[in-house]
Structure formats: C-alpha cells, structure tokens
C-alpha cells in the first residue's frame, strides 16, 4: 500500500514537473523569439519558415547604438580596410551602409534608455515615498472623512488614463512641461500614487501600532519611530509596491508618445519609431526590446524575496 501511494506520489510529481515545464516554455517562447531575433542576421530574421539554427551576430546591437551613412557607391578598398570589424560585418551582411572614420557616433537609443531610467526611477521613488507617508497617516491617525478620502484617491484610477491625454497635453503645453523629464515624472508619480497609497496602507495596517507607541514612550519622536520601527517592518511592502510602480512607469507608452518627442522621449515610443521609412529593421527593434526588458527583470530579480512575501502578505502572516 505504502509502495503504491509512493509510486502514485512520484507519478504526481512527474506530471507536475512536466506541466510546469510546459507552462514555462509557453511563457518563455515570446522572450526567446525576441531575444533570438536580436542576434539574427537581417535576412534570416524575416525568413519563412523561421530559422532556428543560425550564426548569431551582434550587428543589430551595433546598429542600435550607433549611426552610419547610406552609401551612394561602394566604398574604396582603403576605406573598407580602415573600417572596424563590426562595420565590415554590417557591410558584408548586404547593407549598403558604412561608418567612415574612427569617432563613434551614438544613436539616440542610449539617450532614450537613460530617459526611461530617470523618469521611472524618480517617479517610483516619489510615488512610493509619498504613498508610504500618506498610508502611514491614514493607518495611524483618526482623519475626518478617511473613507471618503481613500475612495477619492482610488477613484483617480477609475478613468482610463488615455481619456485625459488631450486635456493633459494642453495643460502641459501651457506650463511648458511637454517633452521634459519633470513632466513625465509628475505624470507617472500621479498615476502610481493612488496605487501606492492603497497598497502601502494594507502593509502598514499589518504592523502593530504598539511598536511605535513603545518607541514614543521610550523617548522617540513620531518621525524617529516611523523611520526606526515602521520603515524596516514595511520593507517588504515597499519593495513590492516599488516593483509595481516601476513596471508601470517603465512600460508606459501612450503618454510618453503624446507628451515627448525628443529631449525627454522614453524608450517605449522610441523603439517602434525605428521601423523607419524603408524596410523595417526587425533585428534592431528586437535588440532594443531585449535591452529594454532587462532593467525590470533585474529589479524584480533583486527584490524577488520581498516581492514573493509582499504579494502573499495577508495570506501567510499570522
């Protein structure tokens, strides 16, 4: 009997593992697709049926980061010989373009990527910081009309943001906030704030207020008690909230497209703009997308322990 049940258990485990592998494959396939495209030669990327085995190359990344000129006629042998290996690779790949000279001329991608980082990081810090303090206030003090205020804060999320895009754009234009980092930071902070307040209130409610009261009686101010006792206890919640806010800001497309075009443009509207006027540069777009996926993956990976505890907070806490 015991042997049978243990055999059943082993079979069950096997099925579970196979199911997990299958689901993981399904979820990873688009990521594999985009990542492999980023390393494909240009003509291989669009071949039908898709090529699985190919000689990977880094030219899409080179093209993503640097600029070069369209050649009107084939380069002279001297020019070709003087060009660095990756330029030769691009030229040999069948494209009539070449970067002449040794100074590297960067494309706009690094700048757009940096814009995305600045806007997302700053707006996440602001949204989580303000949200935590607001949530603390709601959680710990008797506030007149608390329920109404909290509902008001939540209600800012009930409208699809794009609905207000045009009025926002007009307002931003009169305040000279279009195409500025500050403009996007304000916008994303406002988007994330209500979410951050609600999420953080849940987390802070879970922290017994007796801890701070003990600190108050022990000679600390409310502010010191907040930083010494509440913040360390809320770290898990803060991490979870930060990941969600960061992802929202990082992936935001519509407002970034409307509000920015050059100086403060972020990566999401920039990458598709590279489709260009001629043939779509699928490999370059794929390379840009792969790099774009990395920060969120790294950030989530770093906070993974907090995140797991954070999203299952109410369930496993006594």
């Amino acid at each position, binding site marked *: 009997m015991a042997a049978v049940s243990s055999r059943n258990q082993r079979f069950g485990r096997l099925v579970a593992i196979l199911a997990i592998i299958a689901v993981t494959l399904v979820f990873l396939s688009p990521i594999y697709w985009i990542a492999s495209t980023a390393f494909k030669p240009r003509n291989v990327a669009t071949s039908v049926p898709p090529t699985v085995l190919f000689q990977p190359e880094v030219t899409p990344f080179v093209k993503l980061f640097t600029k070069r000129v369209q050649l009107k006629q084939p380069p002279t042998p001297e020019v070709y010989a003087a060009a660095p290996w990756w330029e030769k690779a691009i030229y040999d790949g069948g494209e009539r373009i070449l970067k002449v000279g040794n100074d590297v001329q960067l494309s706009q991608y690094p700048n757009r990527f940096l814009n995305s980082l600045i806007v997302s990081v700053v707006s996440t810090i602001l949204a989580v910081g303000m949200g935590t303090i607001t949530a603390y206030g709601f959680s710990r003090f008797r506030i007149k009309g608390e329920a109404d205020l909290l509902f008001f804060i939540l209600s800012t999320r009930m409208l699809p943001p794009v609905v207000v895009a045009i009025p926002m754009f007009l307002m931003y234009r009169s305040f000279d906030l279009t195409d500025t980092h500050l403009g996007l930071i304000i916008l994303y902070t406002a988007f994330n704030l209500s979410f951050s307040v609600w999420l953080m209130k849940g987390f802070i409610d879970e922290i017994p207020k007796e801890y701070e*009261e*003990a600190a108050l*009686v022990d000679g*600390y101010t409310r502010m010191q008690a907040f930083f010494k006792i509440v913040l360390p206890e809320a770290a898990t919640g803060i991490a979870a909230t930060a990941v969600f806010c960061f992802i929202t800001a990082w992936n935001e497309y519509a407002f970034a497209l409307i509000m920015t075009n050059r100086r403060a443009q972020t990566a999401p509207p920039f990458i598709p703009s590279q489709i260009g006027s001629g043939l779509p540069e699928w490999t370059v777009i794929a390379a840009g997308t792969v790099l774009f996926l990395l920060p969120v993956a790294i950030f989530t990976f770093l906070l993974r322990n907090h995140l797991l505890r954070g999203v299952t907070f109410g369930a496993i806490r006594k």
Partner: protein
Amino acid sequence: MARIQLDNISKVFGHHTALEHLDLDVADGEFFVLLGPTGAGKTTTLRLIAGLEKPTAGTIRISGLDVNSWGPAERDVALVLQQYSLYPRLTVRENLAFPLKSRIRNASADEIETRIAYAARTLRIEHLLDRKTDRLSGGEMQRVSIGRAIVREPRVFLMDEPLSNLDAKLRETMRSELKDLQRRLGATFIFVTHDQVEAMTMGDRMAVLNNGHVIQVGKPSEVYNNPRNTFVASFVGSPAINLLHGRLANNRAVVTPLTFELPVGGAGASEGAKEGAMTFGIRPEDVEVASGAPVEARIHDVENHGIEKIVTLRVGDNLLRASIPAQTEVKVEDAVRFGWDPEKVMLFDAATGVNLRHEAA
C-alpha cells in the same frame, strides 16, 4: 517623587464615551491596580497617563505638574504591554538599549552597558541578551519588556495586562517577581488587569472600573470585605460571592421564593431600619456547612480545589456556594445543613445594587 493624579478625566472616541469624570490619586511608590472587565476603560486610563491619548476633559498631573500638553517622551513613564511590546528584528540587548539611545536620554555607551547589565541581572535574562526576540518564550519576552522599562529608571511603570498571555504557572511566578521588583525599585506602578487574583495579590491599593467609571478605590482587603455594590462584590473574589434576592424582615433575610430564612447582623443590618426587597451577599467562606445548622439543602455540585472543596448547595431554586475543608466527604445529592455568619452578610439595595453600608456612610 511620582504621584499620579487624574482629575475629572473624560475621554470620548467619536460617539463612544470611554471614561467619564474619572478621579484617581496614586501615591508615590505605590503598587496600584486598575481592575475591571473588558471595555471598562482601564487601558484608556493607562494610555492617557502615558500620553498616547489626550483626555477630552480633565487634568492629569504627574508629581503635581499638569502634563496634559506633554508628549509621551517627556513624561518619563515606562509602558509594558500584553504583547507586541518588543521591537522586532532587534536582539534582546538592542531592545534594552533602544530607550537609552533616544535623543532625550542620549546615554553613553558605558552607561548603557551598566544599565543593561543591571536589568539583565535583576530579571535573570543575562543568557538571552544576544538572542533575537522571536526566539524567546512568552515569559522571556515579558521579562525583556519589563527590562526595557527598568533600564530607563522611569518615574512610573505602566503595565497593561503584562501577565495575561502567560500560562498559569508562569503567571504565578511573575506575580511575586513583579511585586518584589516594585518593592526593590520603590517606583510607582500602575498595573492594569482583568484578573481579580492579580489585583488582590499584588496591589497596595486598587481601583475597580466599570463602563468608564471608577466604582471603588481601596486596599484589596477593603474592596473584598466591603464592596461598594453588587458589581464589585461579584467581580472581586474567587469563587464568586453568593448574591441572593429576598426581603429583610426583623433582621432576618427571607430569601425568596420562600425557601429559607436566616438572621443577619453587622453594620448593614443594625442601621437598616429599611426593610423590604434586598440583595444579600455572602462569601462562600462565610457559609457554614454543619449538621446542626438551620437550613437544609442538597449538594448540587462539588469542586475539589485541593486545599478546600467548593460545594454548590441547592435550596429550592436557589444555588449557593460554600467552601468546606477538603477532608469533608460529600457527594452530589447528599442532604446537608448550612447556615451563615450573620455578621458577614452584606446588604445591597435590590434596585441599584449599592451596598447599604456605603449608602449610609
């Protein structure tokens, strides 16, 4: 010196009145117990003294100074709670050092070390100092949180049911330890509990609270022997007092429905010209079960407590508890006879429940 005075204190939360016209005067160095059922306002009173809540009306004085506008940090009181009283993530040593590191005290490293060593020795927690607080048992946690109060050398110790989460055996040990500690420190202790045994055994004086009012203040023996009303009488004392409804006629208690009659004496009766409907209170130890006693009853139930037996007697519809020596052999449904000590019978107004002796005074 830390005398605590609460003068006509009221506290209202929204539509709920937690305390109403509360007066208390706790002497310096006194072990003062606030006793009452859940919701009586004990914890609110403590939080008002600690400065965690502001009174809606009235004045709180510590050592004669009006502290109404003072924050908790300035009042120099220590608070020990029933639970959640230790800072998480910190070791026992860090917990003990925490109050000393506040900007108000700003103690030197040597000073902190000395005080922690003293508190740890006093409470016998030296071996726990480097442990994280989540690795402590309930009793150890409670000791550490008392230690965190001791290191500060506060003027007043406020304790909110510090023993309620401990098991019975440990609670008993901690009771005498706390009392002993208070004697050695000579500090003012205000101790909140709903357990009348703690109040009786530990308090120099106690206040019985109910529904936001102080019902009676006094030494435990006074409160026990001369309760102000039926609420205090039944709340204090274990096993609980017997309260019987009846009439007073010719200095005799006629317990209704007419099942028995016994004499009453003592202060209440001699002054009580007032005859008529009344509630009679008699403690189980003042009920005598003896063969020559005047009233016949049946044994309804027997509880053996080891040092004595508590028997429940049934007379008609009335049940009445008596304590008898443990050696006495009794069985359920045995016929026995009982009487009571007329001097020990308390008379309460049938309508208001107020002790007539208090009413006369």
